[in-house]
């Protein structure tokens, strides 16, 4: 097995997991360092673009249009991909997708696969399914290789091993590649990975990839990457199997003009990805002889059905929101209990779980809006977070048990107070009386009970002033007359 799995169905709540993660100071330093570096690079290459805001708007429009006509574009993709010699498979959920892929690998006659970095394969937990079927997957992306060899879990969409520093990576390589003398310079580590992987590239006859984009107009598939390992996986094997969420489709080839400007600058702070691969079906004497695409729903149509949540599907997985998020940069990705961490994970994961799990994630945000500001396709993440919070509240307050929800009770009481000036004044007076026993001599509160106790874990609170503003105003008004 390739380490513990990030599964929203069994993950602890975000506050609990965050507390644990934040105790790991090495992890926090690694996450902070990596996100600071990527963020600075992104800012530099974004600021040099005079039309960045127009590009974002164009990106948003393309994604919005695609989602409004998703059925049409998926069928167009299927027809064009099939025409070009590809075989299109449809998977309702993760289980169907895994089953199809395992059968295809078996049919290819190989007991090994080389893999391109793909969050979709992480989402559906493909590697354990392959292993259970006696098929050995080799991750070929450097970061994914580190994760696989270290029996670890991805913590970032673009840089899955960003929580590890090079000393930790060296230890993993020394142990797993049996290289006790390995140095710790980046070059040493890259050389070790290159030698380790080259042998796999030349031997393994079946490749598995995800997709950055599916192009409906041509039936082509696009993958962008930085290392070139993907290019190897796309060209050397006899059989290539691509699995993609149905949200990955783009209408036209020309839409890449917008997306391939937005994505690399947002993701890695590069003006262009070092490797941009686009392939369409099969071609005699060039690349894989058999090509399959598994188009997977896995709750995406459920997300699409919700008018307020569906902009989540516009995501192009650049992870700029993760790097910009003041919550993610404190906790790292594992605390989110899902392969999709950070702000986008906080809205995508609970929706992919059809709100049955991961209900604490929509609250894992101060709503500061840094994610929305950097999103290349202008997903209003704070707006969706608030929408999902409403769904969580509706779940928690439904039925008989909802009557005993402490937070909901307090919120409803507050709302009732705010609906009347008289009750609001009375509550202000009552508050001054109620706080008396816990106010110290200097007029500060250092301890609060119950749900409010979270506040006083790290902050004091000043006592309420003797006079509210409205009392002062009333007196002043009276004095004037």
């Amino acid at each position, binding site marked *: 097995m390739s380490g513990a799995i990030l599964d929203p169905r069994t993950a602890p709540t975000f506050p609990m997991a965050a507390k644990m993660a934040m105790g790991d100071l090495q992890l926090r330093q690694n996450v902070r360092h990596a996100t600071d570096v990527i963020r600075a690079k992104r800012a530099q290459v974004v600021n040099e673009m005079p039309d960045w805001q127009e590009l974002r708007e164009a990106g948003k429009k393309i994604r919005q249009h695609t989602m409004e006509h998703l059925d049409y574009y998926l069928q167009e993709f299927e027809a064009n991909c099939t025409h070009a010699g590809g075989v299109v498979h449809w998977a309702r959920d993760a289980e169907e997708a895994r089953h199809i892929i395992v059968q295809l690998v078996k049919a290819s006659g190989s007991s090994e696969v080389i893999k391109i970095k793909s969050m979709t394969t992480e989402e559906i937990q493909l590697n354990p399914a392959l292993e259970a079927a006696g098929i050995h997957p080799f991750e070929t992306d450097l970061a994914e290789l580190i994760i696989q060899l270290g029996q670890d879990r991805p913590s970032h969409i673009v840089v899955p091993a960003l929580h590890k520093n090079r000393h930790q990576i060296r230890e993993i390589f020394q142990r797993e590649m049996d290289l006790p003398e390995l140095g710790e310079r980046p070059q040493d580590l890259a050389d070790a990975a290159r030698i380790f992987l080259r042998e796999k590239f030349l031997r393994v006859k079946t490749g598995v990839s995800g997709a950055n984009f599916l192009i409906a107009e041509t039936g082509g598939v696009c993958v962008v990457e930085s290392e070139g390992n993907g290019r190897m996986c796309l060209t050397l094997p006899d059989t290539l199997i691509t699995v993609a969420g149905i949200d990955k489709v783009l209408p036209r080839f020309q839409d890449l003009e917008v997306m391939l400007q937005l994505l690399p600058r947002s993701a890695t702070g590069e003006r262009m990805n070092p490797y941009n691969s686009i392939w369409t079906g099969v071609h005699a004497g060039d690349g894989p002889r058999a090509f399959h695409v598994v188009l997977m729903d896995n709750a995406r149509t459920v997300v699409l059905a919700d008018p307020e949540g569906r902009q989540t599907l516009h995501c192009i997985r650049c992870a700029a929101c993760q790097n910009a998020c003041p919550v993610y940069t*404190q906790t790292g990705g594992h605390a989110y209990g899902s392969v999709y961490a950070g702000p986008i994970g906080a809205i995508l994961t609970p929706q992919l779980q059809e709100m049955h799990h991961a209900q604490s994630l929509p609250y894992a945000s101060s709503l500061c809006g840094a994610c929305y500001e950097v999103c290349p396709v202008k997903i209003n993440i704070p707006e969706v977070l608030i929408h999902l919070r409403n769904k969580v509240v509706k779940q928690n307050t439904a039925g008989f048990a909802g009557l005993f929800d402490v937070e909901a009770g307090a919120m409803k009481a507050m709302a009732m107070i705010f609906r009347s000036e008289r009750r609001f004044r009375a509550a202000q007076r009552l508050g001054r009386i109620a706080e008396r026993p816990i106010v110290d001599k200097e007029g500060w509160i250092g301890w609060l009970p119950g749900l409010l106790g979270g506040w006083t874990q790290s902050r004091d609170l000043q006592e309420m002033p003797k006079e509210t503003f409205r009392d002062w105003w009333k007196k002043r008004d009276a004095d004037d007359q």
Partner: protein
Amino acid sequence: MHEEIALRVALFIACYNDTLFPETGKAVVRVLERLGHTVEFPAGQTCCGQMHYNTGYQAEAMPLLERFVAQFKHAEAVVVPSSSCVAMMRDHYPKMADQIGKLSLTVEVEKLLPRVFEFSEFLTKRLGLEDVGAYYPHRVTYHASCHGLRNLMLGDGPIRLLKAVRGIDLVEIDDSEQCCGFGGTFAMKNVEVSSAMLAEKVAAVLNTKAQACTACDNSCLMHVQGALHRQRTGVKTLHLAEILAGEERSTL
């Protein structure tokens, strides 16, 4: 003085300012009156509904929208010394009014919102002012609250107002676009992360050697102040309006 026609300004103080930070309201009144405007305080006002809405209690926020509109629909201009409340109104009121489904309410919200201003925004954008005749002889740093920065696009408006204050020693804070970690109920639901974010903000404030940290939102300031006091730093927080209300003869 200046040539702006005197306005009748309705003050929406915000529930927490009313209860916890009355000095901010008094300062707003002082600044606006000093500039020659008339201030009104519709007595039936309570809360904009932000806390309920952002925590997921949308249904509870709906009547508060209706209440706000009823109280302020005839105002010439509404001034709110709380950037997050204004963001709540601008970002969510139109959609909420649609959901309530009364056409008259939707129309009233549409007509009212362009007349609602965050306090610093009212001075810089509505009145076109930078110098409001204030005096505040202290070292100050400005915290750009997220809602003011990203939702209201206040830009350098508050900074320009502060720079025009006589006697002030204004110091820029590092990582000025970073959230303080308040986020309403986030501060209690995610104490650990919120506290870590706050620790960084407090360090940045202390790094400026300022005597006071100011902002356009007392909710962020309450959060920062909570830690500044817990750590006995001796640094205080105060709303931008309280600095702009300072006058040479009344101070010292």
